[in-house]
Every structure is written in structure tokens, then in C-alpha cells.
């Protein structure tokens, strides 16, 4: 039988969960409800009058070419970040899964970047790749690359993808390593005896057996690239140059806080909320089914 705690007072259990509930309500539900309300309102430039405008903010958004560009950009960023961090993490995990000397040290070191906060990641990459401050920028220019992410939008995008992917590698690595260790060694040995060379063994045995982990991480990484890259973008490019690194989340911030268009910003955040709900839904359904092979 499962052990159950019994409380003398009926109030105590409520009191104990109250702080957690308060945090969730104040910091998650209240802002979410606010956002939904705001998205139906339109304020004048000085914030003196507010009108209820139904779906006008949303309709404006869908007519706005810049918004569509941000959507495309965000998806492109997400897939680039997810793909690069997943593939690199998988490579590292496969290598760290081998019985090497000091393998536990490698594993520990590879997990460290996860502890670094996104804005700090941004600053670290600025130190390395800022056109005038960056250590690596000098070498890039010495190699003849016209490296200037402050002016070149593509290079700025590359920089963001690089920094965001780097931070996520640790997380992915951890899951891949656990996934690899869950596969019985004898399956690989059987494949080796069955004449599969290491590359073929990877693609026909390891990769399919990791597919549940890969799918799980893909969703996690997309959510990460959508939302948590804010800190990196804000410290490194502030959405610029032009709008070349402005993702949906950054646009919510710049339109609302910097541009003062609260109604549109709220509508955008509601759309983002829907995207998260959909992604989480996919993930939950998947976790329930667990195995796909």
C-alpha cells in the first residue's frame, strides 16, 4: 500500500501549497489573462484612452508583412538551432559513450554549459566574435572573412544560432547519453558480428533506437529556440541589424515595451501561447505512447 500522510488540520495542506500556487497564479496566470485582455484593447499613444476592438489587433498582425517575416525567421532559427545542437550533441554522446580513460570528466565538463544563463552566453560570444572586441574576429578577418555581425544580418543570425545551439548542446548531450546507455550493449555487439561497420551500425541500429529521444529533444529544442533565446538575442544583437535577428518573442518585447504598442504585443504573445500549448500537447501525446519503434 502506498504511504499516505495524514494532516491533523484541514487548513495545513492548503497553507503548504499556497506559496507555490501564489507564484503560479501571480507570475503565470495573471500575466496570461492580462495578455489575452490586452490583445482585445487598443490604447492611444499617450495611454489616456483605451478602446475595446475585438480581433483588430490580430487582424492587423496577419496583414503585417513584417510579422510573417518574423514567423519565418523564428522557424528558420528554431530548426537551425535544433538541428545543429541535436546533431552535435549526438556526436559527442556517441563518443562519450565509449569506454575511454577519464570519460566521467568529459561527461561532467560537457554538462557545464547548461548552467550558463542565456544572457551570459550572449556576452561570452560577444567576447569571442564581436567585430572589434572579439578574440576570434581577428583571426576570421586574418583569414579574409569580412566578419561584421553588427552590420551583416546573415552573420548576426549565424552568431545567434551558434550561441543558442552551444548552450543547448549540454542538455541534449545528457539525454542522448542516457538514451544510448539504455540500449543493451549486446545489441551493438550483435550488429558488429552481423557485419555492420560503425557508420552503418549507427544509422541502422543506434539512430532508430534513439528516435524516441530525438523526437522528445526536437520538441524541447524548438520550444527553447522560440522562447529562451531572448536573453541571447537581447545581449548580442537586440534583434538587429535591421530586423535580421528579431524572432517572435523578441518582437513581442520590442513592439510592446520599446514600441509602446501594447495591444499588438499582447496579441502576439497570445499567438505564442497557442504555439507552446500545441507543442506541449504533441509532446504529451508522444510521451504517453513512449515508444515509436
Amino acid at each position, binding site marked *: 500500500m502506498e504511504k499516505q500522510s495524514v494532516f491533523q488540520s484541514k487548513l495545513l495542506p492548503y497553507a503548504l501549497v499556497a506559496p507555490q500556487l501564489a507564484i503560479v497564479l501571480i507570475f503565470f496566470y495573471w500575466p496570461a489573462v492580462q495578455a489575452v485582455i490586452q490583445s482585445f484593447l487598443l490604447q492611444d499613444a499617450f495611454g489616456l484612452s483605451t478602446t475595446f476592438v475585438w480581433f483588430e489587433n490580430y487582424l492587423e498582425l496577419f496583414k503585417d508583412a513584417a510579422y510573417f517575416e518574423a514567423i519565418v525567421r523564428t522557424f528558420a532559427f528554431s530548426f537551425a538551432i535544433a538541428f545543429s545542437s541535436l546533431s552535435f550533441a549526438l556526436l559527442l554522446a556517441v563518443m562519450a559513450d565509449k569506454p575511454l580513460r577519464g570519460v566521467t570528466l568529459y561527461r561532467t565538463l560537457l554538462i557545464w554549459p547548461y548552467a550558463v544563463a542565456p544572457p551570459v552566453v550572449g556576452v561570452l560570444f560577444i567576447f569571442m566574435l564581436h567585430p572589434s572586441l572579439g578574440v576570434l574576429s581577428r583571426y576570421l578577418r586574418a583569414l579574409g572573412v569580412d566578419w561584421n555581425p553588427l552590420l551583416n544580418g546573415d552573420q548576426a543570425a549565424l552568431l545567434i544560432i551558434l550561441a543558442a545551439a552551444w548552450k543547448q548542446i549540454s542538455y541534449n548531450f545528457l539525454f542522448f547519453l542516457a538514451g544510448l546507455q539504455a540500449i543493451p550493449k549486446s545489441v551493438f555487439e550483435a550488429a558488429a558480428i*552481423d557485419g555492420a561497420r560503425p557508420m552503418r551500425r549507427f544509422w541502422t541500429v543506434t539512430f532508430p533506437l534513439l528516435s524516441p529521444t530525438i523526437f522528445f529533444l526536437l520538441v524541447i529544442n524548438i520550444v527553447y529556440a522560440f522562447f529562451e533565446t531572448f536573453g541571447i538575442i537581447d545581449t548580442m544583437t537586440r534583434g538587429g541589424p535591421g530586423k535580421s535577428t528579431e524572432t517572435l518573442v523578441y518582437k513581442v518585447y520590442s513592439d510592446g515595451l520599446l514600441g509602446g504598442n501594447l495591444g499588438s504585443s499582447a496579441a502576439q504573445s497570445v499567438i505564442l501561447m497557442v504555439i507552446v500549448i500545441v507543442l506541449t500537447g504533441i509532446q504529451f501525446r508522444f510521451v504517453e505512447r513512449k515508444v515509436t*519503434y
Partner: protein
Amino acid sequence: MANVTLRNVRKTYPGGFEAIKGVNVDVGDGQFCVLVGPSGCGKSTLLRMVAGLETISSGEIDIGGRIVNQIEPADRDIAMVFQNYALYPHMSVYNNMAYGLRNRGMAEAEVKTRVEEAARVLELAPMLERKPRQLSGGQRQRVAMGRAIVRQPKVFLFDEPLSNLDAKLRIAMRVEIRKLQRRLNTTSIYVTHDQLEAMTLADILVVMNGGQVEQIGNPLDIYQKPATTFVASFIGAPPMNLMPLGSDELKSQIAGPDGAGILGIRPEDFVLSSETVSGGVALDLTVEAIEHVGAETFVYGSRQRAEQGVAANPGELPPGEVIVRVPGATGPAIGERIRALAPRDKLHLFTADGRKRVG
């Protein structure tokens, strides 16, 4: 078709632990060799060295006239059946069996013929499209066998393939494996800790202990003439009774050769009788426990209460305790005094350290 020869094979792990301490075994073409021993004796390590899954620290392994020490598992022309079957969980039964053939670039038509033939032999034909998780333990075991036989390798290697099955299925599969091996006539090396499995399957039995070979030979020869007390107590169930030849009354009964320090008698070699036999041994026992198995009865008796104590090794009888097998379901009652006789030609004599047979 191949001989497998192990010449002074050793395995030392980086930490300095010596798992295999110089093993010499010669398995003839088409023979079924069983490596048997308690867990940790190095039998699985030795098999994995033949497979190429473990490196060889020194010595040579020769498969079909070719030294394979530096050859990859894939190129040794062997197939292995693992204890946990090691089926590819994401592939159908068909693809599990076809995988090794496709890796070698075999034409799809030939793959199909071979897989279907193996499926027919192993009665897997109706479940070729299923995934391993949809199969029972016995069926998975057969798929693992199928994966080995489709390749038509020179040597089959079995690493405790039956230990995950229930007792009944294990006996059935044991017979199946033996029949299959006889028909295919493929040289096989089989690892098990089950002495009964070892006895029934082997052409050559290799009894291992502590990384060394204790005895190699025909199973019946080993049973009848165990070379050491370890083999004597490991092969045969219940185990052989081993009694130290101290200064007690046993010593005076035996006109044994010099150096004999331990006397061994198999439980089935006793006869309950009140007479005496010349040249043999007579033991006066108090019945302590009775085990009825149906066709036979095992009587546990003690010689002298004073000598009783704790067994030195797991599986060994406590000193002073003797097992006597009585045919049929009738036996003496608990507490009864009995006399067990063993003729001279059924006695096994070993040196006091148990390392050598002297008669």
C-alpha cells in the same frame, strides 16, 4: 566447417586482474564444445574473446586455420546467440534475420530464400512481420537462433542462451539446439553454468574455474573420472560426496594409493545394506533429511555429529554430511541408523588439496 583452437589464451584487464589464465582447447570440426563453470570463472569472457568482442592479452585463437587475434568480429565468420538475445527491437523478425546478410551485400532474392528456410526450420514463418516485443521468450530465442543460422557461419557461439527461459522451455530448446547443430554440423561453442545442460549438449566438455581449465573431455568420462575435487562436486547433481581421509575409520577401510587425502563417492554409487564389502567403503549414517523426487529418493545422512560444520564453498556439503541416492520412492525414516556401502571401483581418490586425482 572449421576447427577452433585456443592456444595458451590469456586475458588480463587493465587493472591487473587476470580473467583467463592460459587456456588450451581444441574443438574439432562439427563438434559441440560446452564451457561450463560457476559464475565469474571466465567462461563468458573466453567466448567473447573467440567472438572478437574482447581483446586477447596473449596466446592465439585459431578459427579454421586462421589466427583471428587481430580480426574484427564481422570477419571471423562466426555467429553468436546472446543471453538476452540482443534482437534489434525496431526491426521485424524478418529484418532481424536478414540484417547480417544484407550487410554483406547479399542479393535480396537470396536473403529471402535463406530467411524463409530458417523460419521454416525454427517454426517462425507465421511471425516474420512481428516485432521482437510481440514475441514470447521462446520465440525470441528462436529468432536469435535464426539470425545465427541464416548466415551459415563456420562457428556458432552461444552465451547462456537458455538462462532466460523457464525450466520446461529450457529443456525443449536444449533438445532443439542439439538437433539443429547435429543437422547443420556446424562447430559450436556453448557457455553455460548449468551442469545438466553441459552434460547433455557437449561432445567436448570444458570445466572451468577461476580463469583456468579444470578438465577437458567427453562428458561421461568427466563424470566418471573427474580430475579434481572441483570437477567432482560441480558435475553431477546432487554433487559427489567428498570426505577427507583423516585419521578416522575411513582411512583404514581403503587400501588406496599414496597421497590420497580426499575420498569421493557419487550418491548413486551407494547401496543401503547391513553387510560389508571387501575393498569398498561402509559408512554408518544417521538419516537427517529425505528428498523424494519420485523416481528416486535422496537421503541426507550424517556420519558423526561432531564433524558437522559449515561448508567451505557454496554448493559443497557440510563436512560429515553424506547424500545417498536410493532408487524408487521408498527410503529410510528420519533419525534411522543406516549403513551405506560403496564398492572399490566406485571410489574416487584425490590429493588432499583436491587438485589431482590419484585413483
